[in-house]
């Protein structure tokens, strides 16, 4: 039995697909999902916001003549699924089409060692208390601390008229800490997260370290000066520093933007877009990573896709629909937030592969510049390539040394220029978790890299 059969009986799936194509169409698909989750938080050293959620439902889509027809229902009753199929097909009026017989695709869900549902809620509350204590222990200037715990399980089953029948069972766990430090009128914050496509085993090793890190960030910022404004060399830290690549390149590689001419990377396949020292990947199979899944939300096994090889653009990221349009294979990047959403091309875990530079040496070569250790997040307009990032922890670089901490810095620039200006890639490497929004849908993504250096970039601060 595949992972999805408990959710979607193959016989029911065949009836639903037949109903979906009863008035014509080239392709039909049913996506069934059961999601369970538990979240809780600690604030003012008190456990609160405990919430448990359970939803199930299915989405049915029919493709016909360039148009996607979509309907979804709450619940997984066979009659409800057939009603969704009828609704999706309601606007069609052509000859019946026949789905192919279903054949089960054997795909293994990613392994989970310790099911979070099997761990008591008290143990999770205890973990939050430990995070709270650890963060506050960093000093009396830590005046507020919030920590959160979230676990979620998504069982999905997918069947389509090409005969695909697949399923996946996905468990994710994530914790986060936000600390507030105060000295007189000065108030600063620091945040840190830890997450993965894993069970409770994620939290076996020293999860309290994120509380220490968040508190230290906030405390460091108490001594920070206003950030400089102007163009200068910028060294970006590893891990969540990879959100820079995610925003300035990853989104522009999603095939829906490319096909509409709304990406600065359109028409650049095979061309040099970066210096030869840069290679990058989107990899939905990285073991345990936050953005990994066994299959994508169209049933295609996730894969490792090289998007930049030695500075040359080698691939875009496709879902089924955009791949079909170009006559290529999906890269397993068709993802959706839930059964209530249509799949679109999305990143999974996106990263710049480790290079050869030593991070210390990279900084030592900069006379006057900026060191962006981590970001609060970022945004890009894939069509113009303009992007902006909020720096959550940053320092000045003076005469090759990291000096004063800065607050309120923003990095701003244009994708193609900034990507081509990366002149060093560090030999260190790690991944971090993020939530990525596109078209009103949020999905978990991983970002990663070692330290990198951008020869010139605009830092937007208040110190003119």
């Amino acid at each position, binding site marked *: 039995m595949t992972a999805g059969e408990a959710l979607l009986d193959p016989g029911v799936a065949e009836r639903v697909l037949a109903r979906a194509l009863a008035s014509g169409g080239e392709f039909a698909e049913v996506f069934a999902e059961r999601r369970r989750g538990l979240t809780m938080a600690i604030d003012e050293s008190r456990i609160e916001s*405990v919430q448990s959620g359970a939803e199930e439902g299915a989405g049915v889509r029919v493709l016909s003549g360039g148009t996607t027809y979509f309907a979804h229902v709450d619940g997984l009753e066979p009659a409800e699924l057939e009603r969704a199929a009828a609704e999706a097909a309601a606007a069609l009026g052509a000859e019946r089409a026949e789905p192919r017989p279903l054949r089960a695709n054997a795909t293994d869900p990613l392994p989970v060692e310790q099911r979070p549902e099997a761990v008591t809620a008290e143990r999770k509350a205890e973990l939050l208390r430990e995070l709270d204590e650890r963060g506050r222990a960093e000093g009396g200037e830590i005046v507020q601390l919030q920590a959160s715990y979230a676990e979620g399980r998504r069982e999905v089953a997918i069947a389509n008229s090409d005969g695909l029948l697949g399923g996946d069972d996905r468990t994710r766990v994530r914790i986060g800490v936000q600390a507030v430090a105060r000295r007189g009128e000065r108030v600063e914050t620091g945040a840190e997260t830890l997450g993965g496509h894993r069970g409770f085993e994620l939290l076996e090793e020293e999860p309290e370290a994120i509380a220490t890190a968040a508190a230290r960030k906030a405390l460091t910022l108490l001594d920070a000066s206003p950030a400089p404004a102007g163009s200068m060399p910028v060294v970006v830290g590893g891990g969540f520093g990879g959100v820079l690549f995610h925003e300035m390149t990853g989104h522009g590689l999603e095939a829906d933007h490319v096909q509409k001419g709304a990406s600065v990377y359109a028409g650049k396949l095979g061309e040099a877009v970066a210096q030869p020292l840069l290679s990058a990947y989107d990899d939905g199979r990285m073991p345990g990573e936050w953005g990994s899944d066994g299959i994508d939300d169209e049933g295609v096994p996730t894969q490792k896709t090289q998007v930049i090889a030695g500075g040359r653009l080698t691939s875009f990221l496709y879902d089924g629909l955009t791949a079909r349009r170009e006559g290529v294979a999906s890269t397993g990047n068709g993802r959706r937030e839930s059964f209530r959403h249509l799949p679109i091309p999305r990143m999974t875990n996106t990263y710049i592969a480790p290079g050869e530079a030593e991070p210390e040496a990279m900084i030592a070569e900069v006379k006057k510049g900026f060191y962006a250790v981590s970001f609060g997040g970022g945004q890009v307009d894939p069509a113009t390539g303009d992007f*902006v*990032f909020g720096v959550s922890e940053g320092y000045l670089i003076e005469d090759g040394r990291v000096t004063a901490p800065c607050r309120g810095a923003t990095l701003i620039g244009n994708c193609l220029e900034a990507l081509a200006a990366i002149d060093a890639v560090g030999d260190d490497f790690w991944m971090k978790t993020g939530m990525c929004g596109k078209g009103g849908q949020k999905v978990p993504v991983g970002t990663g890299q070692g330290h990198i250096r951008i020869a010139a970039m605009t830092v937007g601060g208040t110190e003119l």
Partner: protein
Amino acid sequence: VSAVDLDLAQGAVGAAIDAGAGDAEAYASEAARREVRAHGGTVESLSAATQRGIGVRAWIDGQVGCAFGTDFTPAGVAAIAARAVEAARVADRDQYAGPPAEPGEAPALAGLRDPSVAELTTEGAAELAVAVERAALGFDRRVLAVEQAVYVDSDERVAIASSSGARGEFADSSCYAYAQALADGESSRETGLGFGLGRGPAGLDPAAIGREAGERATEMIGSRKPPSRACPVVLDPTVAASFVGLIGGALGANAVQRGRSPLAGMVGEPVASEAFALRDDGLEPEGFAAAPIDAEGVPRRRTPLIEEGRLLTYLYDTSTARRGGAESTGNAGRSSYRGPPAVSASNLIVSPGQLGFADLLREAGDGVFVTDVAGLHAGVNPVSGVFSVGASGRAIRDGALAEPLREFTIASDLVAMLKAIRAVGASPRWVPFGGSVSVPPLLIGEMAIGGS
């Protein structure tokens, strides 16, 4: 399967009490949603569905827990209620927690639902989205394409009940359309967003939405980075709304009481220029957040927040009101049945001033008109109020709009920006960014621009 009504909500409350809750509350909603995406003169995708759910909050002697789900069968509702009780047992005791003691009489509120939403056919919705795209393309031959023209509508029913006697139900509708136009900018592409919103499709003007997208995209052609400096800044309503939304967040009593608001401890103090007045108005039917009652059944109301620059009050739900020795302002909000109830602004309305747009520019003299900001979620520290965000817009020279500008930042902190407001424009606009906000253009006396 039951429909969304008071009986369903009351049943969920009863199930939670049976499962061991001392008090309980239920919020049930059902919405028919439709979304049409048009591209290249045809429909790219058409989604239609009814989605429903119920959220239950349970109290056991000061412990609070929440649960939500989509199973409306009696057994399903009982299971959701039981999970809420189970969640409450994990929480620590909060002496201020509990349902509203005397929720009060909900006002009758007309104008929340436009029946034309339900009457609009699928073909009609598709035509509307296509018309938006056509208008954008027709605005100027330099508009190459429209990445997406989208029409969305929603027809919703909500029912709320609690063991302390709060109860109410209402229906509302909303619709909006937007387009993202792409213009050929010689060496680079430019984009522009146009949008419109209303209670029903009759409130949308597809031609105006498309024209705005086309105009915003083409006016950016030839844009370049401005030099870094401090200067007067005029914020377009779409930009001002995002900042007003952040101020609304900072006025939530939860953030204030927990020391996470730049406006904590400032009631009675000047926090803005005298030109600035702001209110929270949960009874203004033009705003999508309007409702007779809030998410815990307390009547919505109109709450002046800032008048003549002075801060008058914070926004409260029941538990923050108890903690603050105040009265609930009817500001318990839920993003949906899935989001746990929390203090949040309803409709934020900035009182219009005297100056028309041309007069605002004349008053600015020499500065920058900001039409778009990016990276708000990353560039604003909601605790300290310090921000630095990416922006684009037009130069203001000799009191009139001049060349387009891109790739610069604007930086300040929320209170300093409010105090620096020199004039408020006369023509407000409803904007769905930053919540539900009605705001005219704002002239800020001085702000730091980071460019070349």
